[in-house]
């Protein structure tokens, strides 16, 4: 399932952007956008390393919360933007997903059965909200549908891979990945607050030189006293 999925994604990526359907754009937005892909990768690793019951609970909670996220997008957006000047909060959605999944992976594995299901739910709701916020056509469902299929594929393939590679070293690597996700989430969130520095002076224009035309203009003629402008008759 991994290789056919990769082949489909590669085909979509090679497709000219203006010929892509909404579903294709949705699929790419989930797998290529760092803010959405990384939390899904982390969640897949967490589900893959968890026991069967925990993995099932985590997946179910993720799916249910994602449905809730899709349904409640307008209400959540309205709540986030209730106060004037808070549009930056919409940019905190992806960082929140990163930090949430990081909090699943970073703690000791013995805590994962307790924290995976609720945090997977938070991640699902937030990822769904992120997909819907990036939907270029809010009337049509193609974008979220493509994004959802891509997300499910990514989680399933990587979780199965993590299960096959299961070992003590992978648990340690998962904790390292968790710390990276928290760091990335914090920094991504920080960029939402960053005031971009004003543009520095533009690079100087290079005057084109043409043969026969002097590079420097001749000096301005001096104005003689009592004679007015030098060009006056």
């Amino acid at each position: 399932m991994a290789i056919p999925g990769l082949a489909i994604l590669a085909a979509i990526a090679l497709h000219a952007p203006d010929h892509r359907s909404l579903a294709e754009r949705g699929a790419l937005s989930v797998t290529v956008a760092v803010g959405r892909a990384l939390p899904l990768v982390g969640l897949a690793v967490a589900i893959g390393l968890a026991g069967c019951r925990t993995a099932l609970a985590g997946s179910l909670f993720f799916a249910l919360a994602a449905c809730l996220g899709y349904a409640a997008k307008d209400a959540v957006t309205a709540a986030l933007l209730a106060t004037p000047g808070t549009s930056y909060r919409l940019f905190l959605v992806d960082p929140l997903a990163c930090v949430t999944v990081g909090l699943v992976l970073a703690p000791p594995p013995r805590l994962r059965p307790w924290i995976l299901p609720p945090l997977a739910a938070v991640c699902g709701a937030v990822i769904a909200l992120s997909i819907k916020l990036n939907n270029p056509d809010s009337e049509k469902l193609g974008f979220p549908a493509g994004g959802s299929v891509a997300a499910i594929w990514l989680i399933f393939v990587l979780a199965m891979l993590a299960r096959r590679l299961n070992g003590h070293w992978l648990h340690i690597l998962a904790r390292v990945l968790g710390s990276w996700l928290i760091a990335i989430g914090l920094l991504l969130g920080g960029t939402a607050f960053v005031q971009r520095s004003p543009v520095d002076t533009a690079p100087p224009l290079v005057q084109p030189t043409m043969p026969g035309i002097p590079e420097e203009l001749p000096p301005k003629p001096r104005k003689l006293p009592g004679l007015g402008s030098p060009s006056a008759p």
Partner: protein
Amino acid sequence: MMRRLRVAAAAATSALLFSSVCPVPAFAHITGTAGGFGSGFAHPLTGPDHFLAMFSVGIWGAQMGGRSVWTLPVTFPLVMAAGGLAAMLGLRLPDIELGIALSILALGTAVLRAWHPPETIALLLISVFAICHGYAHGVELPRATDPADYAVGFVLATGTIHLLGIAVGLALLRPYGGRLARALGGLIVLGGVYYFALAI
């Protein structure tokens, strides 16, 4: 074991192939020197001062052994992010370049002496240095063409250098009683002296 390695290798190759056909944004930009993900990823790798410090964290963790093999590389990015946030929010920290130079000196010395302090002391020490490195990265962030991808790039690069340091440290632990790793620490100390002299 071989089967797992084959599966892992197949997964890594597939990911690499997929990323190579993904659309890559143009790198043309007018202002600043920092771009997006590639620029952020290259920053710790091509900056010898950052590279030496992160690399020595990995080696030192491998030398200390036990939990420290992974607690040091787990703590560093987290505290580094805090340093980056401090820079982004405009907090002023003095003598960051001196702090970075000291980090190379101190971590190189720790590897050279194969120092085994209590884990808390080691974590405190690398936390102080992580703030300096994170701050230096965070200063570049607002000027980046794509700050979000830039941040992701340098965090992933930092983690990769740590893992490289761990791998080299573990590989050099046994031969000649670990003297090769300690010699590497000595070279890192020389680099630290150079950057310290530049920073003064």
